[in-house]
């Protein structure tokens, strides 16, 4: 059986044109997707059954037992942390937020270790942006800053930005200029027209210099800022001003270098000010396919996008305090539920060492380094392959994930819903 218009549940580009061939409830071929997409969709080793750690070893058990154990841990916790969410559906997010509310937990998603700074920046200055189709049809200047999407979002350029022909960009790649700013020559540079190398950690002053030049104050700008010559900076400002429609994409190179969210504030402000001269927009290169979705759901349900602390009933939002890594590094929490993410592989050493000391529950289709830390492991069906549901593309366009094959495991939503029921049962409600 051939299924068309399938979404690739991997990166924030959320391609929805994938063709999948299925035989006997197995995916045998994936077309149109990039290499990473194909390998993700073809699948790999799964967690077979629920497990509970006994005397240091994970022992197989039933869903019933694992879910009950989960509820027991969470109900007895004074400050539970619920973290992850980027590789599952919005329907699961909603259940998770309800669980966090019920428990008085802190809920956070992977944004807090990727584009959390971008969100903080947006809260400071806003975000002049657009959907990706707008870029495909109109943009003639495309800037990637601190983002190597050739590796992280392989089809981003071919589907949405540099290559496609659009309504006002019939020439395709020939009619567009692509500029890359980064600390090193990434693979993206190979397909760019211009590359500007910024010294590590110097994004903030470079952006300030660009804005000063734009504001007509180029006299005060020194001859070299952050490793970039003043001439080069002036040239870039001219390029931006003379574009018909410009877009600045930025990635972790900007959000995670010195200055963090303030780098993004500076970049957004630059783009905002360019609108006095021409049309200019900006967009964070969100990583996982539904990291944006969690921020959306969490915002409409709680008023805040991530790092929400329900311990006092009403939500308290304060990244830096209520964000997962900060809580773990300060050893504030006493239990962690990890879902649809892998902090065991991505968190700082200090956080992981602390996770090893407290009860950890993992809900995931795949074994990963977090499994090594987990005391309860609950396997789930793969969202977007075995479960349908909503995901938000990096530009906040919601698309419905398809179910391609029948699952052998419970969905994240179903697992969370059962945990919630058990929690209520244990509390005698």
């Amino acid at each position, binding site marked *: 059986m051939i299924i068309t218009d399938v979404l690739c549940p991997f990166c924030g580009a959320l391609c929805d044109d994938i063709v999948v061939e299925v035989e006997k409830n197995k995916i045998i071929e994936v077309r149109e997707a990039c290499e990473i997409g194909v390998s993700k969709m073809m699948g790999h080793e799964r967690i077979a059954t629920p497990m509970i750690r006994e005397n240091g070893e994970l022992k197989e058990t039933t869903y019933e037992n694992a879910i009950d154990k989960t509820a027991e841990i969470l109900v007895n916790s004074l400050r539970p942390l619920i973290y992850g969410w980027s590789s599952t559906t919005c329907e699961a997010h909603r259940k998770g937020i309800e669980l966090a509310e019920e428990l008085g937990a802190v809920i956070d998603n992977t944004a807090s270790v990727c584009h959390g700074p971008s969100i903080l920046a947006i809260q400071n200055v806003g975000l002049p*942006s657009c*959907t990706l189709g707008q870029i495909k049809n109109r943009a003639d200047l495309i800037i990637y800053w601190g983002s190597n999407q050739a590796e992280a979002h392989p089809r981003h350029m071919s589907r949405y930005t540099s290559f496609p022909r659009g309504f006002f960009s019939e020439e395709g790649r020939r009619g567009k200029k692509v500029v890359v700013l980064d600390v090193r020559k990434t693979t993206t540079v190979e397909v760019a027209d211009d590359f500007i190398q910024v010294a590590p950690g110097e994004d903030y002053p470079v952006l300030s210099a660009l804005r000063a030049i734009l504001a007509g104050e180029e006299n005060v700008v020194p001859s070299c800022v952050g490793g970039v010559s003043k001439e080069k900076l002036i040239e870039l400002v001219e390029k931006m001003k003379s574009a018909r429609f410009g877009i600045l994409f930025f990635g972790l190179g900007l959000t995670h270098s010195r200055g963090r969210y303030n780098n993004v504030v500076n970049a957004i402000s630059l783009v905002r000010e360019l609108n006095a001269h021409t049309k200019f927009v900006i967009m964070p290169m969100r990583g996982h396919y539904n990291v944006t979705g969690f921020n959306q759901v969490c*915002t409409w349900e709680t008023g805040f996008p991530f790092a929400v602390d329900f311990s006092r009933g009403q939500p308290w939002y304060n990244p830096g305090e209520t964000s997962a890594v900060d809580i773990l590094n300060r050893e504030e929490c006493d239990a962690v539920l990890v879902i649809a993410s892998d902090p065991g592989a991505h968190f700082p050493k200090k956080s992981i060492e602390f996770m090893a000391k407290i009860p950890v529950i993992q809900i995931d289709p795949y074994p990963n380094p977090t499994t090594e830390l987990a005391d309860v492991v609950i396997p789930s069906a793969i969202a977007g392959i075995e479960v349908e549901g909503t995901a938000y593309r990096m530009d906040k366009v919601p698309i419905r994930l398809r179910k391609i094959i029948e699952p052998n495991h419970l969905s994240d939503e179903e697992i969370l819903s059962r945990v919630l029921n058990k929690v209520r049962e244990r509390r005698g409600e």
Partner: protein
Amino acid sequence: MELLIKNGVVYDPINEIRGEKMDICVKEDKIVSKVKNPKVIDANGKLVMPGGVDIHSHIAGGKINAGRLLRPEDGRKGAEPRGKLTRVCTGYSVPNTYATGYRYAKMGYTFVMEPATPPLLARHTHEELIDTPILDNAILALLDNNWMTMEYVKSGETKKLAAYVAWMIKAVKAYGVKIVNPGGDEAWGWGKNVNIDDSVPNFDVTPRDIIDGLAEANEMLNLPHSIHIHCNDLGHPGNYETTLKSFDVVKGRSNANRQVMHATHVQFHSYGGSGWKDFESKVDEIAKYVNAKKHVTIDMGQVMLGDTTTMTADGPLEYGLHMITGRKWTNLDVELETGGGITPFLYSSKVAVNTIQWAIGLELALLIKDPWKIALTTDHPNGAPFITYPIVISLLMNKQKRGEVMANVHKAINKRAILPSIGRELDWNDIAIMTRAAPARILGLDRYGKGHLGVGADADVAIYDVSPEERESKKIQSALLHAKYTIKGGEVVVRDGEIVAVPEGRTYWVNPEFDGESTKDMLGDLTGKFEKYYSVNLANYPVQDAYVPHPVEIKTKV
């Protein structure tokens, strides 16, 4: 389940009941003529009205959520913990979905129209509506800056345009057609704007053509609601002329049941003057027009003095506001369809323009003689958050109260607004019309059981603990903010101002039937648009049934 609401003072304007002491019977989710074994609600001396109907309030969707995300400092206002039945609440001008549902229900409202959904993002709006408790709802789809619309308007292929409108409304599970600064958002794709007779860059049509074309398509499809328009030139001094021109575009059209144009938040479109210095009210001109004609209805878009968040599909307008205030600004242009922007705004009593804006909304309600032509709104949250409705109502009902406010604001109000010279005070019947009967009728929902208490109507009832004679503003406000009872679909959802039940709301959507041949031709064109220009595939575009778990489908025939 049966209810007997006994001895209330009933205002049910659609059924011409004007403050009569009478009983209302409820069986299951409908109003009935008698009941056998009811639970009795004593409404003696209390106001009984149909559940409130909000014709235009931005409560759900991408723009609203971008507003929440933009303003955590607003989010932390009004934070309330989870209750036994209720989820957490946050926000003042950008409340979370739960606060939205509960707060409306506490004010006796049971239906809210989300008035500006970009079709590409409709799934998002529906997802939020699922999480908005209690309220019945519907959405209007933005169809005016769409390339398909403009191309059909230009080529004069009205049948294909109607086929497109029909297909889109069905595809995104919408209730009607929304127009926001027609042509303006397409121009904003290049950082520009247009007025009613300007040509839209690259498309060679004018906003006037777009309005006329969509009105024609709307009437061809026989939709329950008329076109719903946010005119060009919003917020600018001297824009009342554009507004009157926009009204005039459709003056030759008619519909037996209703208006053929609903113009929203007309407060923002009733300005005179050549700049901010001589900015003034032109409500006299607007009211003269509306009083004389039958084809247009409006809603207020009342401004209340204080801090709020502005958010509209009018991209260039929001950028303009941001340039005035320097405050943070978010923009979201949507490919082939529309745009949108958000920026916080403080309406200050010390600023002449803001004070006059405040007066203008009230003037509209007071100078338009027939309350059936004007619904009460604040264009939430643009003029003010919806929870200020009780204050707006108390001002409309009390001249002295208005005088007290006017004494403490910028003196320009005395010269450049009309309000100081207006003595009219609205009564409860007027208020019942403006807050439930008229919006229901303008939306065409009265035919589907909304906005009245006649036998067969939905059992959506508000009971306020205030005597019809009460004139003291504080008492009126607190009674309206915390209904004694709100009954939604026959279920008591609010008692003594507190939420006591949280049923899920239903979504009204229209399934317009249209000629198959034109639809087929149109789909050919649409497929081309998806293949070449959209960033999603056509197969993934229509909103799946899963996003409308409690649908009320309204089928229309040509």
